[in-house]
């Protein structure tokens, strides 16, 4: 959803061409390595927004014109953008892919949970190292915004690493507890007491 609103935000500044929007988004997100959005996705999004009336073509709806389409925001689009600003952003940290992996590994003899943690940790550290280096290469006088974004990444990765440490130190306890069982809705009548 954020790509959509970011495009609306860019269009709210001034009408733009599609390629302008692509470059604008990449710059905003802190570089391609940060958030790699394909131009195709941008154009798909734009056409969807055009259809729903959030965006309009400023140089006329000229399908076969050689002229490149220039997008601009509509009043509805502006309304939508303002709604987005009003809402707070909540990510969903409790939806974790590694968690699923780990839980499943506990039940499978073929996979060692400790090793899993170690691999994940190495990966996290490699990422952390990469971002740290990236952050180090940025100039605080010019690129503070990007640095702050890097810091977010560092902090999240750090949190993940700490979480892994915590899991590792309490892994045995978890293994000794019954694994999460699916809650099966009872069928038929409850057994009589």
């Amino acid at each position, binding site marked *: 959803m954020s790509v959509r609103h970011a495009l609306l935000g860019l269009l709210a500044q001034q009408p733009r061409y599609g390629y302008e929007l692509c470059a604008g988004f990449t710059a905003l997100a802190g570089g391609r390595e940060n958030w790699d959005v394909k131009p195709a996705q941008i154009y798909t999004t734009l056409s969807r927004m055009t259809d729903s009336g959030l965006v309009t073509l400023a140089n006329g709806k000229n399908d076969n014109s050689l002229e490149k389409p220039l997008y601009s925001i509509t009043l509805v689009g502006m309304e939508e953008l303002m709604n987005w600003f009003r809402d707070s952003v909540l990510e969903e940290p409790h939806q974790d892919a590694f968690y699923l992996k780990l839980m499943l590994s506990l039940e499978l003899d073929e*996979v*060692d949970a400790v*090793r899993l943690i170690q691999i994940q940790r*190495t990966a996290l*550290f490699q990422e952390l*190292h990469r971002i740290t280096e990236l952050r180090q290469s940025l100039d605080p006088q010019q690129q503070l915004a990007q640095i702050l974004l890097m810091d977010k990444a560092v902090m999240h990765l750090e949190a993940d690493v700490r979480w892994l440490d915590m899991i590792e130190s309490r892994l045995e306890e978890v293994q000794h507890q019954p694994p999460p069982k699916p809650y099966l809705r009872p069928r038929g009548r409850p057994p009589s007491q």
Partner: protein
Amino acid sequence: MTMIEVKDLSKVYGSGETKVIALDSVNLTIEQGQFVAVMGPSGCGKSTLLHLIGGLDRPTTGTVTVEGKDISKMSDTTLTELRRRKMGFIFQFYNLIPVLDAVENTALPLILDGVKPETARIKAKEWLTRNKLEDRGSHRPDELSGGQQQRVAISRAMVADPVIVLADEPTGNLDSRSGDEIASVLRKIVSDWGRTVLMVTHDPRIAAYADRIIFLKDGRIVDDALLSGDNGDNAKRLKEKVEAL
């Protein structure tokens, strides 16, 4: 080139019921110009490993080889000289001499080595300047912030051109911003000066500055992760690991 080689290194404190095995047959090789972080829960033996490599303590069994020389059998005098010329130490509590100013504290290893005081002062000032402390040279430790004190300590560790710098929780006593500063100074010591740095830390964020992380638990190395190198390389290693499962 191999800078540090640790073979079957063990350290046992006490005996009988109070016996504590701090290190248990550790094997480790560190290349020149590597920035290595040692991590692990407290009491895992990470400081002990650092101290043994630094020649501050004697191993119970096993050997530590620095630049091809076995330091575990060296006499105290030789070892002291080695520490003075080849190694730089950075401690958690900076351990600066409270009655000396920043330049004097920095120049200490040189003066100990018999370098002329004038020469030593010049070199000390150079290092302070590199660590952005040029205007703090005449300040006593208690007139400096924690981060500044640690930078003096790093200058002191570097002033005698050591090949190895050993840092024991160098950021443990600092806020995260000063911690980052210190870590990036250490990073530069490796990247710009080609020294080998071995650092004990429990802070993942600080460890991420290193090229390699060694994870210790209960006196043993449980994992050894290489962080640097291009991504393809790393991915390959990761794949190898997965296959090892």
